[in-house]
């Protein structure tokens, strides 16, 4: 039952992908939903170090509550990945304690805070994803961007490996660049 439900959600997500063909910029809400689906996929292709999640643990996805993606990401809350629940934590501020987070989504809302945050979470096994061009240029793991009405992403393997995260080669192959 759970599986079927899960399957339906995935189908829906995929449906979202393909229901939105070319013009992303024209509909920002739909672009955000697509980005949320990308985030979900990134999580599914990433491996955290052993013991990161305790028994019956959950995957915590953290983001700033003021982020324009917040509403789109809400759809991901409660989904399952690798038999674990995905919890969305919308934080009031990313200055707060980020240690429970497994994934951190940052966008232009926290552009100024990125450097201290980066320092704070340095070497912690937190997958960082951003869609801001500035943040993208300074040490985020997966950088989302839009090119010719298509969402593309770049991966920084140096940071990823430092955080002891493993990314599936399948994902790497799809990246526009891998550093």
């Amino acid at each position, binding site marked *: 039952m759970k*599986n079927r439900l*899960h*399957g339906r959600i*995935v*189908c829906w997500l*995929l*449906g979202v*992908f*393909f229901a939105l063909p070319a013009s992303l910029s024209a509909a920002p809400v739909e672009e955000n939903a697509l980005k949320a689906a*990308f985030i979900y*996929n990134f999580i*599914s*292709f990433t491996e955290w170090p052993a013991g990161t999640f305790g028994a019956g643990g959950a995957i915590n996805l953290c983001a700033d509550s003021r982020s324009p993606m917040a509403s789109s990401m809400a759809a991901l809350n409660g989904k399952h*990945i*690798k038999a674990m629940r995905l919890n969305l934590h919308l934080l009031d501020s990313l200055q707060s304690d980020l240690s429970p987070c497994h994934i951190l989504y940052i966008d232009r809302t926290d552009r100024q805070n990125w450097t201290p945050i980066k320092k704070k979470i340095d070497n912690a096994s937190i997958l960082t994803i951003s869609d801001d061009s500035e943040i993208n240029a300074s040490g985020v793991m997966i950088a989302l961007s839009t090119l010719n009405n298509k969402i593309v992403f770049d991966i920084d393997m140096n940071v990823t490996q430092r955080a002891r995260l493993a990314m*599936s080669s*399948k*994902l790497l*192959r*799809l990246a526009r660049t891998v550093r």
Partner: protein
Amino acid sequence: MKENRFFRFLWRNWENGFSSRFSAGFALLFSSVMMIVFLSLMMRSDMISDRLIQARIIGANSTAVVLFADRDAGKELLSSFAASQSIEVAYLFSGNGELLAEYKEENAPSTGILPEDMRRNGYEFGMQHLRVVQAVTHNGDDIGFVALRFGLRQFYQRLLGYVTMIMVVALAAFFIMKFLLFRMEKLVDKAESHLDYLAHTDPVTQLPNRHAFNKKLAESLEFADQSGSEVGLILLDLDNFKVVNDTMGHQCGDALLHMLSQRLALAARSTDIVCRIGGDEFVVIMNSISKASVDVNSIANRILDVLAEPFRFDVHEFFLTASVGSSLYPTDAEDSETLIRKADTAMYSAKLKGKNAFEIFLPEMDRVAQRRLALESSLRRALERNEMVLHYQPQIDLRSRTIIGVEALMRWDHPEYGLVSPAEFIPVAEESGLIVPLGKWALRTACLQNAGWNDAGLSPIRVAVNLSARQVREPGLMQDIGQILEETGLPPSQLELEITEGIMMENVDSNIQLLHSLQQAGISLSIDDFGTGYSSMAYLKRFPIDQLKIDRSFVNDIHQGGEAIIGAILAMAHSLGLSVVAEGVETEAQLTFLESLGCDVVQGFYFSRPIPADQFLALLRANSKKEPSDWVAG
């Protein structure tokens, strides 16, 4: 009939090799086909499992592509995999059936995979293509499908290669087998024809044997039926061949038979078939004769003529004689068995007529033969029915003119035929083996009789009993004689056994042994019918005999030119220390002549014919009172 022959021909050919070649070829073909089927099934399943694995690899690598709907990456992925294998067409579908990426080999026919067929994992092995569908799963969910179409050209090429190889190997095996089979068949044929030769040929003379004779005769009769001609059968039995074999050895006997067969072949016409059907029995089948009896007559006489020439082996010369009988088909008989029997009857009749003679079958011979059969069957019961009696003929010492002995002679008083001549029933008894019990009975009766005369107070005389060939061959003879003498109480010196020359010479070594033991027992021995048979002077000395009996034919020839022989026999016997009995003395003149030459004992009608025991007793009584000179013809 014709059809039947045709089928038989077919069947024989089928049996002779065709079937074996065919079945071996069929077995090879069958095994080749089975191998090809097995191989293709194996190759097919190998190919399917290979392609399924390939599809699974592509599917596993496609998860991210499907999830991110990255068409470029999908296309790249498909072509990278497709390059390596015989993939003609490859598709990557998303979960809702949308084509994400496709790959097509150059010139690949576009017929192919419908998305509707592609929803399920599996494969479809078609005539030209193998289609494989593999679900793309991620985290346990089906998120899309990889659909692949493989061309089967390579598969068929390889299969064709294997098939060609198997067929070539099978063909080579077939030809090798055919060659081996051919050689084996030749060997078998050779062995068969050799066996056939052995089965149908007499090894000594190289003539057809009895088995072959039966076949050839049947063929001749069949031919005679068809052409309306006649077949003559000449049966030839050597009279004295056994003696040659026994005295000179088998090597000599075989050489003589070989010479004889060559002479027979010369005597016969080219169309005649000469066969050896027994140890000393030959037969000539005369095909398609015109004036039957004349032809048969001339050939039979030619046979007797070629036999008359002496046969030379080593330094010896042999004279072979034969009794020849003939019969005609279809005059005398309607089947081969009867034909042979009639020729045999004729031959037998020739033998009875004194051997070395030729007889054509005549119907009355059959009557004679039937009488013989009847005689034989009643002879079997003659002893039980007390039909046998002994008659006694006195033997008179010429010097004392007294009866010194008596010869016991068998007589058969048949209730139907009356008195049957010994000349008729003795041969029957000899042949049937009845002579053994008859001879034993005669011996016992004669001994008992003589003992009775002793008991009656008459001066002791010797009783002579004839031994037949069969009796001499019986291993228990010596024992029987001893037992009879013991039972009857007759002194052995009062028993004399008569054996003919022929019997004596039959088996020289064992006879010498027998005669020695008889002599040691005190029994006298005399050679009967001396001068008529085949005697070796050397053996006369070796055999422990007491007496010779001159055959009646010589006594009969006295005053007709036979005196010299009697003189010679007497001189020889006396110088060897043997006494001589002359048989068949019928006239005073003969008696005077024999007396003048110093003959010891005489026997014959001049004194008395064979008479019953009571009459002989009277004669004996009268004799003991009379002077010897009172003897006159009875």
